[in-house]
């Protein structure tokens, strides 16, 4: 039976990986991902988990090792953050088209320079187009549940794609929360053993990763992209079966008090929790504000988002990433594209908030909603605003 415990979210996430009975964990420690891989190295050393923990020389080595072990048919997990994720970057683009279902927890952190160990989404947004399925967790329970969902979806033979679960560094990863940990029997009910479609096997040799000459490269890229888009069906199915078994339902786009809202905040990750409190405060004041949270970032659930946005006239889109020289932030740009020339589309205003661990408070969310209401009447000069930045 599942048991509810007070636990650090990183440890809860690592426990989910242990319950998934992974075979290989190539990992290199980096703040704030450290507690996840430390805990996993302990459970492997203690004999609680029969897995190979590979002490690699770098994140580039970690992801290379992940590709190799996944190709050999092993259930593979790793985790990274920020500069570590960027050191993996060259390899991150490879398991998607090669259909290796590696599962990774990215503990989101700002990028240097200046050096920052604190939370925002610049690391994962810089790796947006690596071709992995990407989800975001808001709470410890979600981090635990989404981890199991990731193995289930990634390894499904209809999908066979790598998958990332994003959790915010420190503000989620290092927080102690009440989390319901599923038992081994319950996890085994949900997660079948990994049976890859193809594996490296000397008894039946095949070549993985041949050169893609110009006559075939486009077809290979489109095949991968179509597989990624088609994975949404299995992602939804994985969440439905999780709900049937354990009673917690996840959706690609989640809403909070959005039904009759005129203005909607759009968030990703743990700041959504604060945003919900802000919505309650604004509702108490009689403001028709609501919240839309993006849980599934890739493949982007366009129809689900349009449905969730409903008849709202204004979207205040929060980005945790400043895209230098761009028209606006990555989430803002995504939604502007989604609603381009759609009849009755809401006005979209983009706010960059919470960079490098800067708190995004209830007051800041209220400020964004107020500004969006003003901008809706008088179009601002810039297509985004960095919230709370000091000028003098």
């Amino acid at each position: 039976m599942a048991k509810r415990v007070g636990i650090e979210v990183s440890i809860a996430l690592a426990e989910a990986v242990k319950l998934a009975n992974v075979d290989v964990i190539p990992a290199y420690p980096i703040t704030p991902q450290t507690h996840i891989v430390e805990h996993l190295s302990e459970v492997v050393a203690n004999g609680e988990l029969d897995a190979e923990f590979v002490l690699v020389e770098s994140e580039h080595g970690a992801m290379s090792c992940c590709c190799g072990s996944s190709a050999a048919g092993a259930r593979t997990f790793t985790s990274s953050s920020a500069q570590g994720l960027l050191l993996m970057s060259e390899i991150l683009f490879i398991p998607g088209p090669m259909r290796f279902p590696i599962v990774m927890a990215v503990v989101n952190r700002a990028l240097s320079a200046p050096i920052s160990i604190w939370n925002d989404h610049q690391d994962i947004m810089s790796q947006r187009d690596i071709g992995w399925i990407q989800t975001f967790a808001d709470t410890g329970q979600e981090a635990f549940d989404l981890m199991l969902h990731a193995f289930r979806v990634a390894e499904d033979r209809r999908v066979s794609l790598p998958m990332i679960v994003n959790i915010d560094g420190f503000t989620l990863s290092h927080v102690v929360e009440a989390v319901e940990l599923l038992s081994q029997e319950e996890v085994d009910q949900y997660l079948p053993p990994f049976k890859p479609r193809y594996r490296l096997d000397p008894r039946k040799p095949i070549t993985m990763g041949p050169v893609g000459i110009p006559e075939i490269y486009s077809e290979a890229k489109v095949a991968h992209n179509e597989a990624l888009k088609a994975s949404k069906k299995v992602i939804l199915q994985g969440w439905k079966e999780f709900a049937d078994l354990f009673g917690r339902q996840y959706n690609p786009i989640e809403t909070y008090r959005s039904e009759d809202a005129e203005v909607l905040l759009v968030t990703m990750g743990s700041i959504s929790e604060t945003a919900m409190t802000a919505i309650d405060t604004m509702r108490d004041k009689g403001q028709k504000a609501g919240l839309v949270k993006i849980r599934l970032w890739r493949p982007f659930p366009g129809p689900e988002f349009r449905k969730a946005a409903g008849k709202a006239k204004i979207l205040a889109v929060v980005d945790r990433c400043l895209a230098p020289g761009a028209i606006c932030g990555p989430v803002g740009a995504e939604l502007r594209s989604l609603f381009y020339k759609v009849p009755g589309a809401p006005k979209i205003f983009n706010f960059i908030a919470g960079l490098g661990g800067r708190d995004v408070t209830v007051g800041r969310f209220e400020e964004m909603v107020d500004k969006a209401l003003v901008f809706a009447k008088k179009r601002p000069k810039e297509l985004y605003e960095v919230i709370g930045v000091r000028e003098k």
Partner: protein
Amino acid sequence: MPNTDAIIGWKTITFGCHVMEPGSSVKFRTGDWRSQRPVIDNEKCIKCGICWIYCPDMACIQTEDGFFEIDLEYCKGCGICAHECPKDAITIVPEEG
């Protein structure tokens, strides 16, 4: 251009772009790339086999009499054999026509 047996589209391309049979590089005629070719002078050749060792495409073939021939289906004309030959028995000449 490689000799492909069929026109492959994104729906029919192999899973993960894997090559499902071993030894398939035989089908890839790298000789099509060649702009120059090696010519062996058997008067100078001492049958040492260094060209055979160094050839990246296994295009130096030893014949029954111990001398070497070039398999032009696969020779890319890279010139490594000529560079490595200790007796300067291999000359690289431009392909013509």
